[in-house]
């Protein structure tokens, strides 16, 4: 009776003010989130005050704000998708969502939006879900300040932390993403901004995108992910101020660029990766003012690339600065700082007077005969370097920096 009265009251107030707050908790008017959503009017706010809810799949099919207070838990019990948003203008805030079920037929997520415009997903904690946040055919949505944590051990049993498919105008910002398959995944996404996220120790890629044009990736940290970062088949990409670090192992890259056109990479830091950037087919792309340090290979650029400009980057402490399989280069290297450059600057204009050829003979040898890698750091390798210095005729000419900088670039 009391409950019915409450319902009437809510309905009446909704009528009178247009936006009502429905409270859900064990002692509230509503004890079920599903029930509250069913009753709620568009643009109402549902306040969930603590507690744990395992209500199977919850569909949000009207514009609502779902807000958690005192860390309410929505549990998928390892079986279902937890929140499915099918309405525009939905806000999900302050929940802990856990255990969205693994499925091999559907991409079950903790929070999924489908064909939605405008949404806000913020301040949530997502634990051990199959997919964590999944936006499909969605636009003008913001994913802010969420923590995604999982303990995936096999790619087949793990989805992505933030998964965007066929989206536009999305903002993914200030999230911490770890332990999923990919940290951030984009496919057919445009005009979006991925900013200030930390993506680390994910099973596959820290960031992974394909067919996604006109996007900006700024100030993110991609650390120690299983295979680094891979970006493919996209154009007009802006990658600035990102950190790519500690991605070590065979076939692991700080950043893999495959078929990337008309893009820019500025002010990124590539540190401690087995390969800093692996460029397999990039066109008209600027790689400038980046820092490459202590990588195995700082930059590996294949013959499939054309019109890439590499300038004002710092190369130091790398085992190999640049390698290529090309005999001729259609890319421009100029005004970079190379730690291993041993030229001089007699006219004190800041540029070395003799060109620098960063592809070493040993690097070329390893490129052509991979087994010779067993000679890495051997006196023979040093001898080859030394021989090059005395007789530059040995140095591969494919890549040359005409104006090597004498000092590190500071930005």
């Amino acid at each position, binding site marked *: 009776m009391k409950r019915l009265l409450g319902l009437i009251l809510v309905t009446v107030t909704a009528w009178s003010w247009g936006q009502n707050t429905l409270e859900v908790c064990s002692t509230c008017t509503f004890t079920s989130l599903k029930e509250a959503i069913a009753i709620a009017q568009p643009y109402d706010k549902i306040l969930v005050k603590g507690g744990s809810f395992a209500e199977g799949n919850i569909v949000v099919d009207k514009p609502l704000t779902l807000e958690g207070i005192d860390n309410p838990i929505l549990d998928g019990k390892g079986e279902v998708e937890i929140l499915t948003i099918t309405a525009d203008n939905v806000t999900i805030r302050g929940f802990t969502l856990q255990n969205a079920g693994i499925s091999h037929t559907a991409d079950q997520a903790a929070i999924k939006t489908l064909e939605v415009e405008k949404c806000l997903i913020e301040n949530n904690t997502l634990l051990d879900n199959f997919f964590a946040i999944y936006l499909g055919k969605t636009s003008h949505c913001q994913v802010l300040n969420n923590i995604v944590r999982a303990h995936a051990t096999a790619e087949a049993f793990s989805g992505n932390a933030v998964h965007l498919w066929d989206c536009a105008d999305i903002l993914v910002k200030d999230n911490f993403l770890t332990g999923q398959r990919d940290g951030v995944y984009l496919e057919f996404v445009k005009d979006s901004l991925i900013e200030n996220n930390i993506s680390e120790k994910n099973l596959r890629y820290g960031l992974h995108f394909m067919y996604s044009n006109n996007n900006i990736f700024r100030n993110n940290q991609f650390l120690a992910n299983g295979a680094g970062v891979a970006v493919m088949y996209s154009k007009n990409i802006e990658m600035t101020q990102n950190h790519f670090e500690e991605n*070590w192992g065979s076939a692991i890259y700080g950043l893999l660029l495959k078929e990337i056109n008309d893009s820019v990479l500025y002010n990124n830091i590539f540190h401690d990766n087995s390969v800093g950037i692996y460029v397999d087919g990039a066109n008209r792309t600027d790689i400038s003012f980046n820092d490459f340090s*202590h990588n195995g290979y700082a930059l590996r650029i294949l013959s499939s690339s054309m019109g890439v400009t590499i300038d004002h980057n710092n190369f130091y402490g790398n085992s190999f600065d640049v390698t290529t399989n090309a005999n001729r280069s259609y890319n421009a290297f100029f005004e970079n700082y190379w730690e291993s450059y041993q030229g001089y600057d007699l006219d004190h204009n800041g540029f070395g007077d003799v060109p620098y050829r960063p592809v070493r003979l040993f690097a070329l040898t390893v490129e052509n005969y991979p*087994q010779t890698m067993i000679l*890495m*750091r*051997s*006196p*023979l390798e040093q*001898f080859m370097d030394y021989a090059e210095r005395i007789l530059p005729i040995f140095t591969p000419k494919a890549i040359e920096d005409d104006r090597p900088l004498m000092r590190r670039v500071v930005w």
Partner: protein
Amino acid sequence: MILSHNQASLQSTKKRRSTVKSALKVMKYGFFDLLRSRWIIIYTLFYLVVTSGLLYFGGDANQAVLSTLNLVLLVVPLISLVLGLSYFYYTRDFIELILTQPIGRSSVFLGHFAGLALPLVAAFLLGSGLPFLLAGVRQGADWRVIASLMVAGTLVSLIFSALAFWIGLVNEERVKALGLALAVWLGLTMIYDGLLLLFSILMQAYPIERSLIILSLFNPIDLSRILVLLQLDTAALMGYTGAVFQRFFGSYLGILISLGSLILWTALPIYFGLRSFKKKNF
């Protein structure tokens, strides 16, 4: 007189103990004589200065490890050979003097070798270990990397000073011995690897990783290098071109085999040296 079994074994134990005791006494003299000589002090200072310099100016401890590794691979064998040979010839008459005393040849050889090798090892450990201990750890160097470097340097010092003794023993002519020592040095540091390189290029169509691993076991310089590299992230680069290297050397079995080979490499020249020493006419 017939000795009972117990008495006989007691005597042989006694004899062995006296062999060790005499060896230690022979070593003691070499140790202190060498410690007081200019060369060993210069050698220690050299490491001290170079390693501290690398740590101070290199900034990064791992970078310093790699540079010190180059020292271990190139300079340590060379110095051990040259210093070993000069020490051998310089003390040759004195060895005669010891041999006129009632001391067995095994004791004289082992003690004399230890008297050279231990100061060499001590110089290396002190000269390059101390800076790492003081500065490297603070700069975040991995203790395993430093330990592997110290082990490699120690074994390389032992191997090449033993080789020097052996070369000195079988060659009366100093110039010839020095030439041979330099040839050994060049052979193991450069030429062997050059042949490996040639082999890889010629056999590029075949899966030769396994053969390369086996071939590298026959060269202490390659072994030491790989042992240290495996403790570094850089090892992943080897895996980058084919996981076989990393899988072998990265496994405990691989580390055990390469360490075992290095120890065998130390034992063999000492054994051969001892054999020639026992047969030698002074």
